[in-house]
């Protein structure tokens, strides 16, 4: 059990990060409210409410879906999408889109409008992009959707760009304006934190199962080890992992006071992240 303090420390660190992010959301919402006009204020309150809902227990992809549907509706857009950066390959990967079957598609982060936003961390509003032959038109055409106007903003977590949120084709307008840029940028802040939070929770779920596998292995609980390894191999969603976690903790809780206390600590931490 030499690693137990390390695990607890890691969990405490992770929890402190999440708490700091929650405070950041709160601060940014306040900042947004103070820095905008009355018209924008109403919209920001509305979107803050939506963002608040999305930070709940929804699985990762449902959360992304909630964000892009909210963005599409709030900005009178025909479509919206989220692409996240794969830092290893420096590619953007579509994680969610309201139109077309593009989830999982990749494109280099050093080209195109979303690429510029990902590289610079600055929003970009461009319209009439169809006149640009190098604007990934083939790519857009393959998704069955070629936009007339694009507004793309970065998803930033702790100074690092993690992805790009795009809305396409504003209804009844030739292009997205500065107000849209301001508002979508504000919208992207809690959205980025929510996405990162969901990623972290998923990661923490995997970490917990790994640790519990080790613990069960030490105690000769072959059935638990096999169940946990199967859960890890399957990947699965946060909910799948949490279910598996519950089973493992249940098994461990019958193995003595020390294991039971660790399980309680673990579950307490998980409950706080939820």
């Amino acid at each position, binding site marked *: 059990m030499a690693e137990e303090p390390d695990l607890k420390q890691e969990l405490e660190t992770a929890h402190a990060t999440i708490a700091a992010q929650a405070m950041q959301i709160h601060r940014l919402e306040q900042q947004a409210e103070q820095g905008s006009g009355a018209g924008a204020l109403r919209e920001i309150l509305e979107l803050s409410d939506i963002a608040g809902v999305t930070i709940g227990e929804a699985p990762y992809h449902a959360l992304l879906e909630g964000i892009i549907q909210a963005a599409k509706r709030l900005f009178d857009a025909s479509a919206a999408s989220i692409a996240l950066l794969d830092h290893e390959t420096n590619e953007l990967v579509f994680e969610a889109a309201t139109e077309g079957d593009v989830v999982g598609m990749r494109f280099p982060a*050093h080209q195109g409008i979303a690429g510029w936003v990902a590289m610079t961390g600055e929003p*970009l509003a461009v319209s009439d992009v169809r*006149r640009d032959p*190098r604007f990934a038109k083939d790519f857009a055409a393959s998704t069955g959707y070629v936009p007339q106007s694009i507004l793309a903003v970065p998803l930033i977590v702790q100074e690092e760009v993690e992805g790009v949120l795009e809305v396409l084709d504003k209804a009844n307008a030739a292009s997205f304006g500065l107000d849209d840029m301001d508002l979508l940028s504000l919208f992207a802040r809690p959205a980025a934190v929510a996405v990162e939070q969901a990623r972290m929770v998923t990661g923490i779920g995997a970490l917990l199962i790994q640790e519990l596998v080790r613990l069960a292995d030490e105690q000769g609980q072959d059935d638990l080890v096999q169940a946990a390894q199967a859960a890890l191999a399957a990947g699965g969603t946060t909910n799948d992992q949490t279910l598996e976690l519950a089973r493992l903790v249940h098994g461990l809780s019958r193995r003595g006071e020390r294991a039971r206390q660790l399980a309680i600590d673990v579950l307490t931490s998980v409950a706080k992240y939820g």
Partner: protein
Amino acid sequence: MDEQQLPAFSWPTKAEDRPKISPVPWHEITPEWAWGSSTGKGIKVCIVDSGIEADHPWVGGMVRGGVVVERGEGEIVVREEPHGDLFGHATACAGIVHRLAPDAELYSARILGQNLKGPGEALIAGLRWAVENRMDVINLSLSTRKQEHILTLHDLADQAYFQGSVLAASANNTPVYSYPWLFSSVISVASHTEQDLYTFYYNPDPPVEFTAPGVDLELAWAGGSTAVGTGNSYATPHIAGIAALILAKHGELTPFQLKTVMYYTAKNVREALQAEREEASGG
């Protein structure tokens, strides 16, 4: 006191030893005085961005050179070589400068690329190249949020300021702190919604000092095409272009004096002065 006894950086006290100054009465500083008949000839303008597409018709064949900043074996390398625009953004900025100052020479420092992750080290390398090569005007429609780069960027901005290179830097489009536009040694630029090329406003509420056209602008874009765009990115080259026009006509101006000239030629300042004059003559 004898001159030799002066502390470092001090000026001689004898009038005949001091550098000659030819001040211009502020009320004579008008747009016509500042840039009338100027085309930007003889001025070097560097766009530090995604790389200018040199053969785009809207940059008029005025690209005279440039560098590509890349990540080599673990370190940033700067190579002088022709290049295109990976995104369209630099060409858009260059097109605006060329529209205002058609005879200004354009230089390109491409700081975004395949092996680079955002405008951090590459931005510094590109900006350093522009400063060390004594560009008269440097357009930076980008910024970085990375705190670790602040000191280096600040030194570069000061170096530019003191050697007489004007650095026009875009304010972030969102209300966040980023650099170098927040430094007082640069001209920081945000947007207004008018379209007239020569109309800019003085902002009495810093850190942004001037606003220029930045909404729904027809822009040069990658691949010889055009697009319509919005953002402080496009306001900044308007100020860079105006600066090029002024410096081509008044090469002796320091960045400090240039800002003063821009203050007196800003639309809102001119309107206020005009109103004062009318009130005085009416009274």
